């Protein structure tokens, strides 16, 4: 009897010691990231949530009085419509990126041979070099006196230059241009991770190529599709530069609104409410994606 109590006490002490050791190790390795996450991600989000409920004075200064007008404007007002449009545009962009990105990833993974690294290199290089200058160059290409219009006019297909810029189509093209590599790379990674034996098994069991693709390859690369969609869709909803450059004042997205409130109007309460609602919307979407898409598949791809 005595002995069992003794061992219990000592095992409790050892559990406590183990706990203390874990806490020490955690604080040693994880304290910097915990500071980053809690102080520089969550606290700023909290602050903009707080400012969302404040009024703005006639000169744009903050008036410390409670109001729900800013949030209401996003939920039901004109801003709400722009939010929905942004989500719609981002969704279209995402689908387009999958439709373009999947075949390319498939081609590189399956037929790339010894040029695989070269293909990946060719896709990465443009996306890692001056975003701003590239977007402006693309704008020059599709502009009214750009390469595309000049060629079409010289070939006699059209008489007047096509107005491509400042349309939703132009914005979508810019978004696809900017974000496509972020769809291709995770899909490519998940295709590369496929076990060839599984594909062989499908063929041996008599599955025709098309059936094999839809029943085996596609489901097994779901993680890559999911990761790519998160990397493309979420930042796209809040994109500012692309609609700024390709949409001008004609096509406005949620990110444009946030940037405009902060950098032009200097209206912190309204800007904060827009930024916070954007963040909240995207956290919700991220949560739903992880919940219904499966965390495991996602993390394998990331």
């Amino acid at each position, binding site marked *: 009897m005595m002995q069992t109590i003794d061992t219990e006490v000592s095992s409790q002490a050892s559990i406590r010691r183990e706990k203390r050791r*874990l806490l020490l*190790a955690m604080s040693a*390795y*994880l304290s*910097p*990231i915990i500071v*980053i996450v809690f102080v*520089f*991600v969550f*606290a*700023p*989000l909290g*602050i*903009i949530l707080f*400012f969302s409920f404040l009024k703005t004075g006639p000169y744009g200064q903050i008036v410390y009085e409670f109001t729900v007008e800013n949030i209401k404007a996003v939920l039901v007002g004109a801003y709400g419509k722009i939010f929905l449009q942004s989500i719609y545009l981002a969704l279209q962009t995402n689908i387009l990126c999958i439709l*373009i990105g999947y*075949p*390319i990833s498939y*081609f590189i993974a399956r*037929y790339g041979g010894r040029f695989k*690294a070269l*293909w990946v*290199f*060719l896709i*990465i290089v*443009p*996306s*890692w*070099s*001056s*975003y*701003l*200058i*590239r*977007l*402006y*160059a*693309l704008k*020059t*290409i599709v502009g009214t006196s750009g*390469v595309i219009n000049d060629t079409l006019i010289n070939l006699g297909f059209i008489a007047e230059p096509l107005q491509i810029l400042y349309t939703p189509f132009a914005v979508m093209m810019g978004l696809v*241009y900017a974000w*496509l590599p972020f769809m291709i790379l995770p899909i490519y990674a998940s295709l590369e991770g496929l076990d060839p034996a599984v594909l062989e098994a499908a063929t041996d069991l008599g599955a025709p*190529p098309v059936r094999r693709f839809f029943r085996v390859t596609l489901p097994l690369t779901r993680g890559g599709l999911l990761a790519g969609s998160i990397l493309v869709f*979420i*930042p*796209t*909803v*809040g994109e*500012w530069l692309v609609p700024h450059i390709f949409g001008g004042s004609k096509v406005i997205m949620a*990110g444009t609104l946030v*940037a405009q409130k*902060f*950098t032009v109007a200097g209206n912190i309460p309204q800007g*904060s409410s827009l*930024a916070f609602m*954007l*963040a909240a919307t*995207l956290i919700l979407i*991220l949560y739903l994606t992880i919940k219904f898409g499966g965390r495991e598949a996602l993390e394998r791809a990331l």
Partner: protein
Amino acid sequence: MKRRQIASKVLGGLSALIVVFLWAPVVLIIVFSFSSNKYGVAWEGFTLSWYAKLLQNTDVKDALFRSLVVAGVTVVVSTLVGTMTAYGLYKLSFRGKQFLRTSILLPLVFPSVVTGSALLVFFTRLIHIPLGFPSIIIAHIVFCSPLAVFIILGRMQRFDWSWEEAAMDLGATPVRTFMRVTAPQLLPAIAASAMLIFPWSFDDFVITYFVAGVGSTTLPIYVFSQLRFGSTPVLNTIGTLFVTVTMLGLILLGLLQKREKR
């Protein structure tokens, strides 16, 4: 067999088209940076004068210097934080670990305007960090560290941990084990994350624009301020240098990985 060949041809053609789409603006920038057309939008004959102009431009030099300092500090701090975090996340299990992992993902996927504006309000209204170098560097560490975490964590999951156990069994202290066994094996991943973070930090415009305040012009902010008046040949030269440096970096990274495989 025939069908397979057709499929590969069609897919290959499509892939080539997309690569052309991605490269067209880049090629245009490079070509026009050598063109004597003074608006930088047409070919009028070869010249190097824009590069000479670039070298004389003190605004560009100042901005370049600032961007290099910011990116340099960001790379060092972020890879350090990333390595520690990845090691902690891999080795320890504790309550709230999933929550922490998902939270680390947030700055990586949040739109830049959200991160930028939230940090701006936080810096100016709550903790009063001066806008400029301090605010820019903190903001960059916030959005770059998560990238390092996930790159290094990905590597750790394919890591042969028995080496570490062996070293410990043979009597090496934890610190010695880490320095002599674990760190060398992680070095390729650490190098890879550093080389991905550098251009990310160096090229960031939106977040920097929010938190930079007045007078702290980094290179992308300089580019943005010039682009308001349309494209210029000097911007084309900056773009060309960007592409060149990125290509060299990626080639270096590729060589590193090749060496690692051997």
